[in-house]
């Protein structure tokens, strides 16, 4: 889109009613395209499910992981999806606290992405473990074995962090949705829809006292979600940093992971937002300036991530630790060098293009770049997990890795699973925050100066 077109969008006058019109139009009965998309997503998810079934029936052996690379695609996917989740919370909570107005039109989608990405991420530790039917042993509950989980394990921290993250972001998401569902309820003509929205909006009517509590609570949620988002990816990074594997054991991991998560998450938001904006004609609400703001966020986080990569190499060299040194020699020049250079290109070099404004404001370019970044971030996790594990302390047990079709199927299935929720969500609930957009709009007044008396 050119700048002229952007200006056009700017000029389009949008009032309260128009917001409802534009957003709730998205909930109109779906066409064939939507059903095909849903079928595609459900189908892919089902393939993933079947692959998992195969794995449960036969044992973990059907996956490609093997001694010494005990963590593989599943944990890569876990970190990847948790990372995706992060930008949602960042956009909805952190930017809320910073009063960044550009968040308003995109935050609902970003937050839905968060919840669904955590739902996807949360599956992977269970898919990954050898005896998934005992996954509940990680929960501290009184049991007939008189045993408790080990609170010193980073994996248990993960259980707490991810479940807290899921709960809090789901609450934040749902609370934000309530007034919008009420709006949808009031517009709904279909009886079933009306009934469902009546229930799910919990009878929200926008009473002035409720708004007072609502705003107070919303601020508090945002205040909780902000440290949470930082802690969750830090905890995820500690899964690695707490290990003694050369290439894992680094203090830089938490900030590096958080930045990486935001980086990939923003890219994912762009990937999702561009087609949705196009399909549902949201241009008046989601404007070019919003994309540009996100592009700038990518520039920032890409810089942080690049810095972290360089620091890792520097630390390895400076530490004079032979294992670390070998590891960081191995990454760019060893067996998995393609992954390393792919990562470097996608995460460090490609985003540099955004310094050039015409590219930064080109929607097509942004869409392509966001996908490149997503690939790059997946490769980053691959690098951290696989490459480090393949070259550890004892040369006798250095090993390699082979993908298996089961892992591939489950990875694809995760995208299907995530896509399925997204597809369902955009047709059933307002995917753009009606209330919040209205909040940044000037309220309708009879007398422009009347409000100033108060």
């Amino acid at each position, binding site marked *: 889109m050119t700048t002229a077109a952007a200006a056009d969008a700017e000029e389009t006058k949008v009032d309260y009613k128009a917001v409802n019109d534009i957003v709730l139009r998205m909930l109109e009965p779906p066409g064939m395209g939507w059903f095909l998309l849903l079928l595609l997503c459900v189908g892919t998810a089902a393939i993933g499910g079947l692959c998992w079934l195969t794995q449960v029936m036969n*044992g*973990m052996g059907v996956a490609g992981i093997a001694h*010494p690379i005990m963590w593989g695609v599943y944990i890569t996917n876990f970190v990847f999806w948790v990372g995706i989740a992060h930008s949602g919370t960042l956009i909805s909570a952190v930017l809320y606290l910073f009063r960044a107005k550009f968040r308003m039109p995109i935050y609902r989608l970003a937050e839905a992405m968060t919840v669904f990405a955590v739902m996807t991420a949360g599956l992977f530790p269970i898919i990954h*473990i050898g005896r998934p039917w005992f996954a509940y042993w990680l929960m501290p509950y009184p049991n007939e074995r008189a*045993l408790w*989980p080990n609170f010193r394990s980073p994996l248990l921290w993960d259980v707490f962090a991810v479940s807290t993250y899921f709960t809090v972001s789901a609450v934040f998401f749902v609370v934000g949705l309530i007034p919008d569902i009420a709006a949808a309820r009031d517009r709904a003509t279909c009886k079933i829809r009306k009934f469902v929205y009546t229930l799910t909006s919990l009878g929200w009517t926008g009473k002035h006292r409720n708004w007072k509590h609502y705003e107070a609570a919303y601020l508090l949620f945002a205040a909780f979600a902000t440290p949470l988002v930082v802690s969750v990816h830090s905890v995820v990074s500690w899964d690695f940093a707490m290990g003694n594997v050369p290439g894992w054991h680094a203090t830089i991991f938490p900030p590096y992971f958080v930045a990486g998560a935001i980086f990939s998450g923003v890219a994912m938001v762009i990937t999702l937002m561009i087609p949705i904006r196009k399909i549902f004609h949201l241009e008046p609400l989601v404007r070019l300036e919003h994309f540009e703001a996100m592009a700038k966020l990518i520039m920032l986080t890409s810089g942080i991530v690049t810095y972290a990569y360089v620091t890792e190499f520097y630390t390895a060299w400076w530490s004079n630790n032979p294992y670390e040194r070998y590891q960081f020699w191995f990454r760019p020049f060893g067996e998995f060098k393609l992954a390393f250079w792919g990562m470097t290109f996608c995460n460090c070099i490609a985003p540099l293009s955004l310094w050039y404004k015409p590219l930064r404001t080109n929607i097509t370019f942004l869409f392509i770049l966001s996908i490149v970044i997503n690939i790059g971030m997946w490769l980053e996790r691959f690098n951290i997990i696989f490459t480090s594990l393949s070259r550890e302390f004892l*040369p006798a047990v250095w090993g390699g890795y082979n993908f298996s079709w089961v892992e591939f199927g489950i990875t694809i299935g995760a995208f299907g699973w995530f896509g399925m929720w997204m597809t369902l969500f955009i047709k059933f609930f307002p995917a753009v925050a009606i209330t919040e957009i209205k909040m940044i709009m000037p309220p309708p007044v009879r007398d422009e100066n009347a409000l100033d008396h108060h």
Partner: protein
Amino acid sequence: MSDNGLVQISSMKKTGEKKAGDMSRRTFLKVLGAAGAAGATACADSSKQNIFPNVKGDNYQVPGVATWFRSTCLECSANCGITVRNREGRAVKVEGNRENPVAEGGLCGLGQASLQALYNPDRIREPLEKVVDGEKATFKPITWKAAYKKVQAALKKADGKFAFLTGETTGSLDTLVTDFTKSLNGTRAVYDVLQPVAEAKASERVYGTYGVPYYDFEKAEVVLNFGADFLETWVSPVGNARGWAKGRKADHLSKVFHVEPRLSLTGANADKWLCNKPGSELEIALAVLKTLHGWGLGKNLSEDVNGRIAKLVQDVKISDVAKSSGVSEEKILLVSKHLKESKHSLVLSGGAAGRGGDALGLATVTALLNLVLANVGSTVDISRMRKPKSLIGDVEKVLQSLDSGDVELLFVHGTNPAFTLPSDFGFSYALSSARTKKVAAERGDLPLLVSFASELDETAEQADIILPAHHFLEDWGDANPLAGINSLVQPVMTPVFNTRSFGDSLLTLAGKGVSEAKDYKSFVQKQWEELHGIVGSSLTFSKWWAECLERGGYFKAASKPVKVTVSKDAYNVKPAKKVKMTKGAKSEALHVLTYPSVKTFDGRAANRPWLQELPDPVTKAVWDSWAEIHPETAKKYGLSQGDGVILRNYYGEVNVPVYVTEHVHPDVVAVPLGQGHSSYGRFAKEVAGVGNILSLFPKSATSAGALALSGVTAKPVKSRTPSILVRTQTENSQHDRHLARTKYVEAKSHGDHGHHGSNGHHEGGHHEVKQMYEQREHPLYEWGLNVDLAACTGCGSCVVACYAENNIPTVGKEVVYQGREMSWLRIERYFDQPAEELKVSFLPMMCQQCNNAPCEPVCPVYATYHNEEGLNSMVYNRCVGTRYCSNNCTYKVRRFNWYDYEFPEPMQLQLNPDVTKRMAGVMEKCTFCIQRIQEGKNTAKNEGRVVQDGDIQPACVQSCPTEALSFGNRNDKKSAVSKGEHSERAYKVLDHHINTQPSVVYMEDLRFKV
């Protein structure tokens, strides 16, 4: 068998013979369920269970308590003593017998894997008869009675046209077979590829007595070895290794010079491996002899001998030898110098390198060297000889008779000529020709070949009737491998299948013609009654017999001095580089060298999954055969790792994967013996893709009358299909990480043991590191393991012991290729210097039971934690399988159950009921054999004391042929491990870098600096 008279030795030290055979087969199988001892079935819940108590009581068997039986291993002709653990009527573990002097308690992998022959799913379960139905010949079960009747009929008709082909036999069985053959006017031949016939014959020439002397490795300060794989399969590998290790640990540090065109395990353990041109061993030996003789050694010998030796070596030019052998003049002189300066030395020849065309010549010069060095009587004991009977000439004679129709009935037991005889000998051809002749003589319905094999090997497949013999663990018998060693074989459990003792079968077939004995057991007893008379024991025979059973035999070294008489043949030695190949020899082709390995021996071990899965000590390959090719040669023939190579000569061709290594002479392609079975059970057949290397060998034998294993030539051609050699370790270098450390010892001359120079990496080795956390207190016991790298040969016996003790499944080639072998204990092998100054390090790596274990805090469910006794505990049933522990394990010793592994029936009977069989999805690792620790503590508690040093031995420690491993309580300052810990050689792997505080202490390897 109605009377299996099991005699046990147990912790209660009961002796005597059990009266009635009260364990019927049914009860043995069902008694497994007794008191839930079926323990070893699965980790998973099995809900409804039944208990099957014995029908009749058994005074010696308490459910849940193991009984130990002593016996003798008959897997190879070394005949080490064994002790077999029996639980609820089934043999579950074979260990060495400390009281038997052959191996003094050590046991090799093959001996331990004898259980897998016993429980082999492909064993012949009942007598079989071949039924020819048109083109197809199948085996049909037949009753014992009918089978005997048929064979007896054939025996009656055979009338002297009878031959008996056996493996090496000693003791009563040898007597019985000889008597049996004699009674029928038949011929008897013995065939065993591995027998050191050349050495035995050379002894006859030089020392005057036929046989392989007993070599005392402990005493020898310098060992010059021409290719004898004395740490692997040669003569008595476990005994040799034990002696060698004692010499290594002693303060004179025996130095080993190994001359062989390839790096064998023995070569890898030598201080200096001299890579010679194939077939040049004799020249080198002569050069050394010349040097030593020139220096005036051997002056005490008679003038005649001296003169003849001088004559023998007069034409030898050391510089020429150096040129043609590839071993430099300085090295020859260096070796000679060390030999001269040592008080006791030892010169050996044998193995594959010693089985070229001039084997007898080499063995003779070797013997002369020993004579010149005055080793006879000190390190070479000619009063205790092993006398191999396996002469290829005898076998050829039998084959000729078969061919000509002079043999109409052939009995085969304990040998597999269809596989271990090169096809050029025409075993199958002779059989079919005999068969044709028999049909012509209208005796075609009578069996021609009667096999007593207990497994369907290549020879048994050609048999007309198979009378499956008991496995030696089910049978009575004895062995007399060398003078003074009379060891007993006794059944350690009721037979698994419907088989019969070989001796019983022979006695039944012979009727009363051979012996009065009613069965083989009484036959053996009769033989021992004679021995009893000779021994002159004060006990009555039955008491003495019981005592011998408890001890495992009667051992008394005969120490008669034997006079050395050198025959004139001894000086008739001419170097001949190659085996005479009757046809198609081409000079440009490579020398083929084939050698027995600890994994397969001559092929008899190919049906043992433990050994197939045991990584070859040097190449680390599993479930395969391979061709060792030098990089230059590989380049010349366009071969690389991952290719298959077809070795082709006139006699046949073999397709094997390529293993490119610098550690082989460029003129040589070395292939291990024993793979490529077309029969012999599922495990052997799994490696059927590669050919039997012996098919390249011609009929012509070595000068000693044994089969040649070296010197044949073949042309390598790259195979069209790639062939991946699965190896458990692909990285050869330590990358300067100082994992397996070596201390170099410089000894200047005799008496001066020199100063010990280490390679000097002691960072954090001894000084206490400041700890962030308060260290764990271990109030009573702190278990520790010491590994003396100076004694470790890397043979893998401990690995097999671990598989056997801990119910570790073997997973097969495919799964190992994926990196999913289950071995709890691996031996890391590093090549660190360039080939010229090669240092091979072996580093046994098991769970280090770290005090600061990185695996423990990362487990979210406490499936692994640190217990009060210093153990890094692993609780299988708590494990959910996050595998974080394995990632975090510095030593990568944790194994994950990727699948549920099945033990094919009846192999599940071997499972140790004291160890949980793990299910899919859980992690497992070395536990220091916690079941043994618990048992030891239990016994100690019953006796009201604490556990003492030596009470508990994990399986690996117990089995180690060289006693390189020791286990005990570090809190006990007097224990062996505590003492070892304070040795100046002690260090802990990687501890200086990551402060894991392992409980396993290694002691630096000791090497003589050449």
